[in-house]
């Protein structure tokens, strides 16, 4: 499986944000997208996820077969928002995404335990702290399987211990043959990640 972008360009509200971005990710590869605010990191991730149309260039997912014909069908997207309902319990939220997204992987309880939240499954999501909410959102990546993880500032609000835990999870995902593309300002603790610097218009 291979995620390939060629001369990708993106725009927001008619204004070009970036152009000429090319990269290629194989199984077990990680790509960190860095750059100053407004350089188009989030826009790039949204284009790859198929939420925004690409202004130019192509993004394809090769070797996914019938199961994952496009990048968007093969991707988990973790944006700035957590995508959880405050009125439902943590467990109900995770079980919903597990069923809705298909390809069930871990049970919601197992995923919560991986993120060190085994005790809070019964609480409404709205009661949690910012960091706990983020960890639940990360647990969502584990309850159903996707080869590509698109992460937008994944560690925002996490403490050092959770960051380390998350780094281990990402490493495990890569060793499983997954791919990770993360927009970030902070080092994520990935050992063998290539870096894509936005803003200079250059590509890695």
């Amino acid at each position, binding site marked *: 499986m291979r995620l390939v972008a060629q001369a990708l360009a993106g725009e*927001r*509200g008619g204004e070009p944000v970036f152009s000429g971005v090319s990269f290629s990710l194989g199984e077990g590869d990680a790509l960190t997208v860095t750059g100053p605010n407004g350089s188009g990191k989030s826009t790039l991730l*949204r284009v790859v*996820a*198929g*939420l*925004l149309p690409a202004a130019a260039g192509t993004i394809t997912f090769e070797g996914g077969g019938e199961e994952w*014909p*496009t990048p*968007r*069908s093969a*991707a988990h*997207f973790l*944006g*700035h*928002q*957590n*995508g*959880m*309902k*405050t*009125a*439902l319990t943590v467990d*109900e939220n995770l*079980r*919903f*995404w597990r*069923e*809705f*997204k*298909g390809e069930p992987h871990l049970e919601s309880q197992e995923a919560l335990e991986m993120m060190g939240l085994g005790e809070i499954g019964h609480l409404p999501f709205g009661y949690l702290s910012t960091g706990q909410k983020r960890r639940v959102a990360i647990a969502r990546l584990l309850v159903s399987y996707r080869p590509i993880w698109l992460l937008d500032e994944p560690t925002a609000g996490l403490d050092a211990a959770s960051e380390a835990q998350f780094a281990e999870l990402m490493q495990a995902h890569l060793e499983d043959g997954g791919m990770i593309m993360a927009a970030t300002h902070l080092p994520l603790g990935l050992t063998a990640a290539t870096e894509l610097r936005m803003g200079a218009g250059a590509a890695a």
Partner: protein
Amino acid sequence: MWALYIRDVQLGVRAGGGALVGIIFFLTVVAVVPFGVGPDLNLLARIGPAILWVAALLSVLLGLDRLFQADREDGSLDLLLIAGQRHMSALMVFVKCLAHWTASVAPLVIAAPLLGLFMNMEPVAIGAAALTLLVGTPAITFIGAAGAAVAVALPRGGQLVSVLVLPLAIPVLIFGVSASYGAVTDPAPFLPPFLILCALTLFFAVIGPLAAAQALKWSSD
């Protein structure tokens, strides 16, 4: 898809879901009319079905603007749309409409016969009004979904939804009320307007979700 239906019904019924607001609004409007119109029982019986229909239309519109906005604010809308490859987006909208109808509109239909008594309506008229509401209100939800999808990215889009949707909902109102009247007044027929009402619901069940899915696709900026 079934999971999405269950989730939306749960959200609608739980605290802050907004389902209750629509029901209370419906009860209030209908309960206030006899005080405004006065104690003329014949007049009340005559305008009863129309009042029930207008009140139901307005209370359905009241909650519809939150249909996609709540999902957009917490980021779930992005995730629902990304899953579009697996579940067609129009189908996702359709299921959300059904869940919204179950949680916020079905209780109105159930409460309508009781409120019909307030309006001094005959049993046949009450039955006809409840039946037309049962068949006709889904159409309003489906039309409203398209409006809610267009207004999803706008701040204070709620009022816009009502304005956008109301002209399209007028035919539903006309045929709903005329079928209710047809059941009790002699020369007017019941079946033809009722069948047109059914047709409108089926028509909007297809057009509404398709239009809403298209609008959501362009709003995900």
